[in-house]
């Protein structure tokens, strides 16, 4: 099976930004999910998942987003999504996730909106 | 069940001409006939097919129950005749397929204009008490099954012999796929048992259509005396001994083989 998803991580003062490129489904989800625990997050930081180049996401792919959310909440950090493609937001609507994640148009918007929480 | 795709049927040659159906034997597939087809196509409608379990047949159609006896193959053969509805055909059966032709013609003679039995053997195992010599003992057949197993690793999967799309040999043609002579080991084992353990000596006398027994001058699998036996038991049959040696005259001596088939099929149709 050719790899159809890659993951690019960069760090900003606001916290890590993960860009998911490709298809997020049951072939690719386990690998990404396995990479999450190693992701360092400090309390008050914000994890941004940039989905601008995500071409596909099925119900199994959703587990990755939820695992990321669980990871962020456990670290007392927050999680937001950026640049959610139409296709993916349609699935979000079906599974009712659009109410669970804060969504920004772009990763830059998400970074700009972040405010450090007072000690 | 679509019989045509189940048996990967191909019909070529002259439309409306007498029909010759070519049935391959144990081990390979319809590509066995590729050297005789060009000649036969000039005179006949030629029907080629793969037995279920071989070549490009539908492997999902294979079951141990149906294909543990020659009857399953014979049923297939008669279904093919009905499906194609080409009228009485000349059936050319190589090796074990010759006996499928015998069984089918005994059951539905009206479907057949004639039978060509190429390197046939009604029974491979000797029966000394009956004075019959098939050429092999039961132990020999067990040994063949071991040989199949010994090449199981090599014949399955990625370690297959260098047969796939060899660019230096375009003459092999597209139809010659990697499947040639490679069979699922499980299927091969069952087919080997059917082939080498069947005894159809008693069925020969039931053939009531014209028959040609074509044997090779030297054949390790079906020796000349076996061909003579078949000829003697099928009423009114003809016997021709080809100059070809080995068990596969359609490969070793395609012109001679095609000529024998054409002469017989042309005369009876």
């Amino acid at each position, binding site marked *: 099976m050719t790899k159809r998803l890659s993951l690019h991580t960069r760090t900003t003062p606001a916290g890590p930004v993960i860009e998911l490129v490709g298809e997020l489904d049951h072939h690719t989800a386990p690998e990404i999910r396995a990479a999450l625990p190693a992701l360092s997050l400090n309390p008050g930081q914000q994890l941004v998942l940039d989905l601008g180049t995500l071409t596909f996401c099925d119900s*199994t792919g959703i587990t990755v987003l939820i695992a990321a959310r669980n990871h962020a909440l456990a670290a007392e950090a927050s999680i937001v999504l950026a640049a959610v493609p139409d296709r993916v937001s349609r699935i979000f609507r079906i599974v009712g996730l659009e109410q669970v994640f804060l969504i920004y148009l772009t990763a830059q918007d998400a970074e700009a909106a972040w405010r450090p929480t007072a000690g | 069940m679509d019989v045509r795709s189940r048996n990967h049927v191909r019909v070529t040659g002259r439309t409306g001409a007498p029909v010759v159906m070519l049935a391959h034997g144990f081990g390979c597939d319809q590509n066995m006939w590729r050297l005789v087809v060009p000649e036969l196509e000039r005179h006949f409608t030629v029907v080629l097919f793969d037995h279920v379990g071989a070549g490009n047949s539908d492997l999902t159609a294979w079951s141990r129950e149906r294909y543990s006896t020659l009857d399953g193959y014979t049923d297939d053969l008669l279904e093919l005749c009905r499906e194609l509805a080409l009228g009485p055909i000349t059936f050319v059966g190589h090796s074990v397929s010759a006996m499928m032709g015998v069984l089918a013609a005994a059951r539905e003679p009206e479907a057949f204009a004639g039978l060509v039995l190429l390197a046939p053997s009604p029974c491979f195992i000797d029966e000394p008490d009956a004075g019959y010599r098939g050429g092999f003992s039961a132990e020999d057949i067990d040994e063949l099954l071991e040989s199949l197993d010994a090449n199981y690793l090599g014949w399955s999967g990625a370690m297959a012999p260098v047969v796939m799309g060899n660019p230096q040999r375009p003459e092999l043609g597209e139809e010659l796929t990697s499947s040639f002579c490679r069979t699922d080991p499980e299927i091969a084992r069952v087919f080997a048992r059917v082939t080498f353990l069947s005894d159809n000596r008693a069925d020969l006398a039931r053939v009531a259509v014209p028959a040609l027994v074509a044997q090779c001058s030297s054949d390790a699998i079906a020796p000349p005396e076996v061909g003579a036996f078949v000829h003697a038991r099928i009423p009114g049959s003809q016997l021709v001994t080809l100059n070809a040696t080995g068990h596969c005259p359609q490969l070793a001596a395609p012109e001679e083989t095609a000529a024998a088939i054409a002469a017989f099929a042309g005369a009876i149709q």
Partner: protein
Amino acid sequence: MSKTNDEEHGGAREDEGPVDDRAQFSALLEDSAEDLYEHAPCGYLSTQLDGRIAKVNTTLLDWLGYQPEDLVGRKYFSELLTVGGRLYHETHFAPMLRMHGEISGIALELKATDGSRLPVLVTSTVKKGGGGQPLLIRTTIFDARDRRAYETELLRARQAADRERDRLQALTTTLQKTLLPPTLANVPGLDVCAHYHVASVDEVGGDFYDLFPLAAGTWGMFLGDVCGKGVAAAAVTSLARYTLRAAAVYHPDPVAVLGNLNTVLNHEYNGADPRFCTVVFGLLTPDRVHGGFQITLASGGHPPALLMRADGTADILPTPGGQLIGVLPDAHISTTTVHLAPGDTLLLHTDGLTEAHTNAAIGGGERYGDDAFLDFGRALAPTTATGTISAVRGLLDTFGTGVDDDTAVLAIHVPRPHSDEQQ
């Protein structure tokens, strides 16, 4: 090591071993092609096209205990083989060689004159003349005694692995069956049909459905999809199925049933490997006044049902805002009610159908999609439960290997009164 040491070493050798060196060197120079052929560490054999032996090297003669005159011009290659090997040669080896001009690495056994057997690996090529016409067959034979023992082990391991795989597939099939009802309940006045498409025989999938009686002439049904595959997903599927049935008996309000399941899953699975499902639960009540059935559907983040009307129209039945089950402590469940009149058909499905690749055979990445699915319903309406499921199965067949996730479909249909059905 220093340069000086090298020179010293070289100098010492010049004194001690010039004779050996020179003998070796001249032996190398004098090694004739003929000698190499005769005494090569493998057997060489040339035959005519019919297999009659024309030339054979000393190595092979020695292995088998023959004199050249025993073989050349007298015997066929296949006569050197065991009987089983000879059959194999005639039915596989020779045809392959004829067809391809070469064949390599075939395991056979040769018979020696003393009756012993020599396991060998045989490679043959057909030598051709200038015009491409085959002239003779060249065969190389390697002693494979050591290898054969190893291969026997390998073969045994392979067969054991095959048996294990069969066992696993049988187990998977059995497990899959336990997750689905053996037969759907027979609901008076309702035509019901379901289908489960298994995407992989090696892995149990996470789709599930059921239809079962509840108190006072009502019926419960559900269809859902647990994320993921394999045994872990199957455990969730099993939990979901039994929780739904138990909860429905306890309190058949669809929102309460799904709320119950949400609580159970949310407690059970959290953290880095979240498990959730999307599910539709329906409560079916016969409509004594208007005929047909009154259906209350609750959706927990599941793709909407497709409603195909008796008048030939079709549309999706939205259940907006329902959230997937098991992730959030207080998932929102949305409901909708619909009256299923005589001639109407309701189809529930999992996303394995809509996410199937439509042209997998040619490596395409196109997915079927919701729009095409709606068009499918519009083309099908009006229909029956059996008609719907058979059409879906046909659709899945056209996708072939493109259906890479399990797919469950459940259709319910209210038959028209008998007199109408005739028309």
